[in-house]
């Protein structure tokens, strides 16, 4: 494997670039995806290479341009459309969940909608309650959308190419704090070696990032790095298995269940709100498999809007330290 390292944003752009070169039906739409190159660098350089017809800046009209993606996809195009922050889903959710997500079903399979909806999620830089949320739990709850949440550059490229080639709507979440932007701190481990050539990573295959026998930590996105840090910090005392789900829909329940069967303990770490979300879904997935859990714990955003002030924000998001503490408590 090549040793060329890319940031996650460059890996995403490379994936889109290679697919646009391969397939003229692929095009990009969204706010500031053109000259600006995407506020979080998800489309940098594409306008210069493919021109205004295939890289389209839109007005601030998410309902219109996401619905436009649905309509264009029904006619054979393969739009990649960006919702700048997932926090904004409320202005366009109807087009996403009642139409893009359901038209294939309501038409008995007659309509195919190959749309990739890219969106930025996550906090940690004091962007407050309307620009820091995870929210993937909402999209995983409603049927008809595949939900992808890469944690590093290698996965980001492979999952993006898989998403573009998928004939179904895919919500592609990228954490702002993983993109490797010059102006926002990102874990060094988010930038990885990335092969030049196109490759895909199948949806629904979690990755065991670190194997262990005392406790299973399951998470996704940015929290994968924090969980690994926590596991490493405890390795003298505890053998912790860390699982990166990579996609929430489809959800790789077998990998999680098998791990808990081995460790007997599950700690779910989530940047999304705690209740009615990922943490609960994994508890149910293990319990309904009749796998005894000696311990189940969850560390997630404590069901409060995300506060602006640094000490408050740091309090609501899991950190390597709080994860380590939760892990120790879960095994004690």
């Amino acid at each position, binding site marked *: 494997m090549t040793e060329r390292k890319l940031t996650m944003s460059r890996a995403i752009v490379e994936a889109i670039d290679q697919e646009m070169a391969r397939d003229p039906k692929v095009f990009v739409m969204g706010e500031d995806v053109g000259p600006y190159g995407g506020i979080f660098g998800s489309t940098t350089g594409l306008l210069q290479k493919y021109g205004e017809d295939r890289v389209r800046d839109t007005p601030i009209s998410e309902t219109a341009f996401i619905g*436009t993606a649905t*309509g264009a996809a029904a006619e*054979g195009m393969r739009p990649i459309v960006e919702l700048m922050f997932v926090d904004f889903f409320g202005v366009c959710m109807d087009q996403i969940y009642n139409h893009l997500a359901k038209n*294939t079903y*309501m*038409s008995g399979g007659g309509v195919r909608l190959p749309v990739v909806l890219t969106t930025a999620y996550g906090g940690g830089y004091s962007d407050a309650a309307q620009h820091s949320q995870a929210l993937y739990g909402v999209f995983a709850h409603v049927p*008809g959308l595949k939900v992808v949440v890469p944690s590093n550059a290698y996965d980001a490229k492979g999952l993006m190419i898989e998403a573009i080639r998928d004939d179904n709507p895919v919500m592609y979440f990228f954490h702002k704090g993983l993109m490797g932007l010059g102006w926002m701190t990102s874990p060094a481990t988010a930038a990885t070696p990335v092969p030049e050539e196109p490759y895909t990573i199948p949806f629904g295959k979690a990755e065991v990032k670190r194997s262990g026998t005392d406790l299973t930590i399951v998470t996704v996105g940015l929290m994968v790095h924090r969980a690994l840090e926590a596991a490493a910090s405890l390795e003298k005392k505890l053998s912790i298995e860390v699982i990166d789900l990579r996609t929430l829909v489809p959800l790789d329940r077998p990998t999680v269940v098998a791990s808990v069967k081995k460790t007997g303990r599950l700690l779910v770490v989530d940047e999304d709100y705690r209740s009615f979300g990922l943490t609960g879904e994994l508890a149910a997935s293990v319990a309904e498999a009749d796998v005894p859990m000696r311990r189940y714990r969850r560390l997630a955003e404590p069901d409060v809007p995300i506060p602006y002030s640094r000490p408050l924000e740091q309090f609501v998001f899991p950190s390597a330290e709080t994860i380590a503490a939760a892990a120790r408590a879960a095994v004690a």
Partner: protein
Amino acid sequence: MQLDRDKLLWMYRTMLLIRRYEERLVDAYLEGKMPRFDIGWGPIPGEMHLAAGQEPVAVGVMAHLRKEDTVTGPHRPHHLAIAKGVDLKKMTAEIYGKKTGLGHGKGGHMHLFDPAVKFSCSGLIGAGFPPAVGAALAAKMQGKDWVAAAFAGEGAANQGSFHEALNLAAIWRLPVIFVIEDNSWAISVPRSKSTAVSSNADRAAAYGVPGVLIPENDALAIAEAAGVAVERARRGEGPSLIEIRTFRYLGHFQGDPETYRPKGEVEELKKRDGIARLGRVLTAQKLLTESLDGELRAGVERELDDAFEFARSSPYPEPADALLHVFA
């Protein structure tokens, strides 16, 4: 653009087909709901929004559309679907919830999808505008002269999607026609209580596109305005907005008590019925004779017999089929 004899007769016959189709649906819908009406009972359960009175809108616009052109419709879709050429058997089977339906029984009457003629509709008010813009964008990017038409009621013109979609279509100069069917009611809310302007055509100025109001429920007047808009779109000159004052003869949905509706309103409207109106014109033009009219009506009944027979005799889907088709 002149409408030739065949097209004029097509308009007339299609209106008859729509009217009679829905008259039969009313009966079918009430099966199993008598003496007591229960929305969930009978061979056709669920909501039923009929378009009796609005036929001129459908044929007036569709007279200019081809198979390759896209149409998105609202919750009240039958007249539009039929005029666009949606397979009547499969559509009826869908409404009956049968396996042979357009969506294998998954969609129902508010969710008719016929990719063969590029028709779709939605139960969400105003939701059809953006996908029509998308179809127009796809046509433009693929270098086709195909157009798209989005139909919705006057109530839908107060939904944000109307504004966003028109603006986007206008700045991108996309080949799409926005057609507002003003039947003056949004369920029980009259347009005067929902809309700040007397005509949605006035709203075209907010997007720098042509806006036309057709004050009469007249298929020929509608066809004339639609012809201009469609040609403009095909020439790549961008979107247009057309509002038509049309008639809602029935309740919002079947079972609507309509206590909010002034007595006698419908009777007055029916005196200006759009089908009879075109019939008189065609008769005067000697294009329609009594015998031809009889033939057309007989043909319509035969076509409807086939469609309803197909639907009734088709099997229901297997219950577990509910799990199929979430993803393509």
